[in-house]
């Protein structure tokens, strides 16, 4: 298929349609509104449902209803709008419904700004709503990947009957890149015999997240967690870039930030500093084993984020305290430039002698910006 | 002859049927049912006119009504 140049927002919308997701509910918010606007035109063409709801709160509950009725359904929003969906996401997860939510993240907290950020990592991966549940979170780094992961998202949502989030920063939504729409690759899926489609010829179906009996509620939670264990086994996605025994530093970054790190790595190569990149593509399940393996030969790690430091907590947790893990990032809509990443790596390499190996105590460096650092 | 059947273990003893009966023939039993309620029962079955008002107001669908004669159903429910 020929490539077309498309905005990330629009490409995600088109990808959803190609994946058979013909039902879309939305509420406008920058920087994802183009997705809604694209689908306002496209859905009627393909006989799909386009509805602008009165609020993100309403939209997230429309998703529940529609998913419960057995169709592929999705929405898109940006940070404050996603916060308004937290109750519903908890309900959707509890009732085990497949929905896809696109979050084109902007700077927060509060009304914040409208420029790209990655400061919703915690909310997405730890569950911003109440109770024990998780979203499956996919973080594309290019428009093509956004397309591919969007298609995959619907499959995964159906496979696990779990909400899936596409987490792109504003950059992913706004930039144009060439894309191809390959037919979606999906495994077999069981029929949605749990859906509320009318009880004709079968016993009634009931979709609910209420379990007044604590034994039943705990059992439901176990079912959810068994799915999360399956996801950890089967769905982890990541990329290793320029990883080798010679790496002085391993960068950990996702989405747009990972691309910037790649440019920085090229520049560092010229400076004869070998640096690798580990890019989680699934943020939940987080590539724990894989990061641990990638970290093995390396002296230190830096989590590079467009936030004040969120994923770094997972990196620390996974890698353990034997190895210094530090954070570098900008936030509020400021995207660290390759030059800044290069400078941070140079600083770290100059700073540290041979990396210490044992029981590091957290130590603050006087790093500029929001860098925080932990080393031996 | 019209007659009502009270499913005594569905009954919660609310007495609404009692109040609704134009013939005033429903009373409450002196015994408890399995749920611990004094349930409704018909006092003078023969006076029942099969009007269904007791059943219509019963929140617990504890009353069924039979008729066994040609009869005008006064209210269209």
């Amino acid at each position: 298929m020929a490539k077309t140049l498309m905005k990330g927002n629009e490409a995600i919308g088109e990808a959803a349609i190609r994946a058979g997701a013909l039902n879309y509910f939305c509420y406008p918010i920058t920087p994802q509104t183009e997705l809604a606007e694209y689908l306002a035109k496209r859905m009627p063409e393909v006989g799909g449902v386009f509805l602008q709801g009165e609020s993100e709160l309403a939209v997230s509950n429309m998703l529940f209803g529609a998913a419960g009725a057995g169709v592929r359904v999705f929405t898109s929003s940006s940070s404050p709008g996603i916060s308004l969906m937290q109750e519903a996401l908890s309900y959707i997860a509890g009732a085990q419904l497949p929905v896809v939510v696109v979050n084109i993240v902007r700077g927060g907290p509060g009304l914040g700004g409208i420029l790209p950020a990655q400061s919703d990592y915690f909310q997405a991966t730890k569950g911003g709503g109440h109770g024990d549940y998780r979203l499956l979170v996919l973080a594309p780094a290019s428009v093509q990947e956004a397309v591919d992961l969007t298609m995959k998202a619907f499959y995964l949502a159906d496979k696990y009957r779990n909400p899936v989030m596409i987490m792109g920063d504003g950059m992913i939504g706004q930039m144009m890149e060439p894309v191809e729409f390959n037919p979606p690759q999906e495994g077999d899926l069981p029929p949605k015999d749990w859906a509320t489609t009318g009880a004709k010829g079968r016993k009634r179906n009931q979709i609910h997240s209420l379990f007044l009996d604590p034994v039943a509620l705990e059992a439901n939670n176990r079912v959810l967690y068994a799915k999360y264990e399956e996801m950890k086994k089967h769905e982890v996605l990541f990329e290793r870039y320029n990883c080798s025994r010679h790496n002085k530093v391993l960068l950990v970054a996702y989405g747009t930030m990972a691309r910037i790190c790649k440019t920085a790595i090229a520049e560092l190569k010229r400076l004869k500093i070998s640096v690798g990149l580990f890019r989680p593509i699934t943020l939940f399940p987080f590539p724990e084993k894989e990061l641990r393996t990638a970290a093995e030969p390396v002296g230190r790690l830096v989590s590079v984020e467009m936030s004040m430091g969120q994923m770094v907590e997972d990196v620390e947790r996974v890698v353990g305290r034997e190895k210094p893990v530090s954070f570098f990032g900008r936030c509020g809509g400021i995207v660290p430039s390759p030059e800044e990443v290069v400078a941070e790596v140079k600083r770290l390499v100059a700073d540290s002698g041979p990396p210490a190996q044992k029981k590091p105590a957290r130590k603050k460096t006087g790093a500029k910006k929001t860098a925080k650092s932990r080393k031996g | 002859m019209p007659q009502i059947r009270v499913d005594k273990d569905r009954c919660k003893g609310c007495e609404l049927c009692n109040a609704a009966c134009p013939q005033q023939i429903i009373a409450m039993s002196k015994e408890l049912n399995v749920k611990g309620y004094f349930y409704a029962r018909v006092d003078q079955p023969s006076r029942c006119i099969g009007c269904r008002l007791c059943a219509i107001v019963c929140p617990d669908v504890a009353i069924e009504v039979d008729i066994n004669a040609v009869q005008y159903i006064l209210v269209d429910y």
Partner: protein
Amino acid sequence: MASTLDRTVFRKPESLAPKITHYCPGCTHGVIHRMVAEVLDELGVMDRTVGVAPVGCSVLIYHYFECDFQEAAHGRAPAFATGIKRVRPDLVVFTYQGDGDLCSIGMSEIIHAANRGEKFTTIFVNNAIYGMTGGQMAPTTLANQVTSTSPFGRDTDHTGMPIRMSELLSALVTPAYIERVSTHDARHTIKAKKAVRRAFQHQLNNDCFSMVEVLSTCPTNWGLTPLEATKWVEDNMIPYYPLGVFKEPPVEEG
């Protein structure tokens, strides 16, 4: 209407499950459930109907019906119903909501669903109180009514006048069928069922959004016997919440 010999003229409707409800004795939620089930039977739509349960005393309504059901978040049943009906317009969809659910936290969702003219039916059970959580004030609580969060009686200077939801929704321009009925005695219950049927009929005709507001009792939290409670509806609620059809588009078939 003349009937023939030997038959049961009143029994549990097919659409109602046999399970005994968890409602308090005399609570008219039960009557309203049965009414809806009867209408589903009569219209023969049970097996293509999806109900949406509220959060409130009737949160477990899905146990009591034989049709499919979704249980919504507090107040959001109209958004759920919108989601279902938009993607499956062939289904018959209804929400069943209490006054706390519909008028308080769910105000926005019901207004917007009504205004978009969503083709589902709402059964709105107004008992002037939050039943499930133990008797707090609702937006529908009457002036001076004592509840656990208006322990000195509802002070309308402080909390405003009770919301008349049927009147409010009728102020929207989009066509709709809106009627207020009561279940406090047999006569009114008979009328109430007709309204419910009419509402579903409008849905089947794809006419408009339809809502039946049903005045209902909460003997437990009103601190009255079931019978006193029905009297309280008559004496206190109906004067403030007048019964009748507030809005209806031209009808093709009753």
